[in-house]
């Protein structure tokens, strides 16, 4: 340990001598540049890219979320494993697609785990229930919304609050009224062989109380038609019919999970 000060002093002397020698060989100001060791060091490599400014999240008012059921689970009246069962969520819809639910709220349950309040595709329409977060897959966001005006027989699709498509529709005939409320698009079907449904059909979470005996229990769809002459009108068993060109235009713009508000 006693040798360290001497070692440091020797190192300092050597450094001073080396610096003095360097100054002498470079000739000081005006001397040849290549002799300056500092100047001979390579310049930093320029990066191939540099990220721009941080990207803050925009404030959005027109976002709705949905998630597909990841494992069968009971939807309960409260975020509590012992709360009453409202219904059971299955992995698949009757049409064989993944089964989405609208995400309405989140809360920590009585078990200390995260729970999610979800919109349910059951009667009575507008039902909701709580499921453990682990029952659902990843969240998906949509910025579209479809408003169906039963009085004006018109459907309007908005994106980020702005109308992007407005088309005439056929709705439920007397006795088969299209249910009102807030629903969501569950799936999209195409390439089937049912001309009465046109080229594309969307399944929704709306159920017709008058058509529970219908296959799959009377889900209300949004689809094309082979009777465009009946649109607009009150002509269906509860479904929302569009002319085929209109349903194709809608299909290009409306993702699954889009809220559907029927009033």
């Amino acid at each position: 340990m006693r040798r360290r000060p001497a070692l440091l002093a020797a190192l300092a002397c050597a450094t001073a001598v080396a610096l003095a020698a360097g100054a002498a060989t470079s000739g000081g100001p005006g001397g040849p540049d290549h002799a300056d060791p500092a100047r001979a060091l390579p310049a930093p490599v320029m990066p191939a890219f540099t990220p721009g400014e941080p990207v803050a999240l925009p404030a959005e008012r027109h976002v709705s979320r949905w998630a597909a059921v990841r494992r069968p689970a009971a939807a309960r009246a409260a975020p509590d494993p012992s709360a009453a069962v409202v219904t059971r969520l299955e992995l698949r819809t009757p049409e064989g697609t993944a089964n989405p639910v609208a995400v309405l709220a989140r809360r920590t349950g009585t078990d200390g785990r995260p729970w999610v309040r979800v919109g349910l595709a059951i009667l009575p329409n507008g039902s909701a229930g709580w499921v453990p977060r682990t029952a659902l897959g990843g969240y998906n966001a949509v910025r579209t919304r479809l408003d169906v005006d039963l009085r004006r027989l018109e459907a309007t699709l908005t994106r980020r609050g702005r109308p992007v498509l407005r088309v005439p529709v056929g709705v439920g005939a007397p006795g088969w009224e299209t249910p009102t409320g807030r629903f969501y698009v569950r799936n999209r079907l195409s390439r089937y062989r049912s001309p009465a449904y046109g080229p594309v059909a969307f399944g929704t979470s709306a159920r017709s109380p008058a058509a529970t005996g219908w296959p799959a229990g009377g889900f209300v769809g949004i689809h094309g038609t082979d009777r465009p002459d009946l649109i607009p009108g009150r002509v269906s068993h509860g479904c929302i019919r569009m002319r085929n060109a209109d349903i194709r235009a809608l299909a290009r713009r409306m993702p699954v999970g889009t809220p559907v508000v029927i009033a």
Partner: protein
Amino acid sequence: MSAVTFRDIDRDDALGEAVERLYGCTRAGLLRRAAFGGAAAVLATLARPAASPAAVSDVDVLRFGLRFEQLQATFYTQAEEIGTIGAMPPAERRWAQTLGAHERAHVKIIKEVLGPKAEPAPAFDFGEANETPRAFIRTAVAMEDLTVALLGGVTPGVHDRGLTAALLGLLTVEARHAAWARHIAGADPAPRTEDAPMAIAAVQAAVDKTNFVVERPRMRGRSSPPFTG
């Protein structure tokens, strides 16, 4: 100083189970017990032999980097959108929002650099990992540490010097993220004298086994519509 373990950040035990499947109970037990300060190093020791650097092109590195940045950016973005970050105290909120904004900027630039060679973003399911502030913070620590290990592992193998310089720029920022996240979590911001690098294959294996990257649910069908008509 609290010891953050993988068990803490891995509530569904995805990482633990994944390692168990890959390497057997003994190593999984080791990982679960490992203090988080050494978690990346432990993972690195578990890595299978990686492909030689020559087998991985610069585009491969960027593509993997994009995927990993998308994973992180979506994790932070979603936590902000669903309100997890909003429920945090101001200092933690500022940290989480800053990291999210940085990761989104990283995604943006790497996508621009890759151009048509950029692959579409995969679907993500973070389960409970970003539902509560506690789970979110601990998962963020794991992600940021893993990012540092990844960049430390791939950067020396990159062929283009300009790209190497760019990745070093990301590496230093990610190291700041990791230290900040550890500070927020109450863990040691600089627990080691060096950060162990990880090969892409090892990082891929770790990410795969979290089940954060998932298949998109199939929402389209061809069955005849059973709707009310």
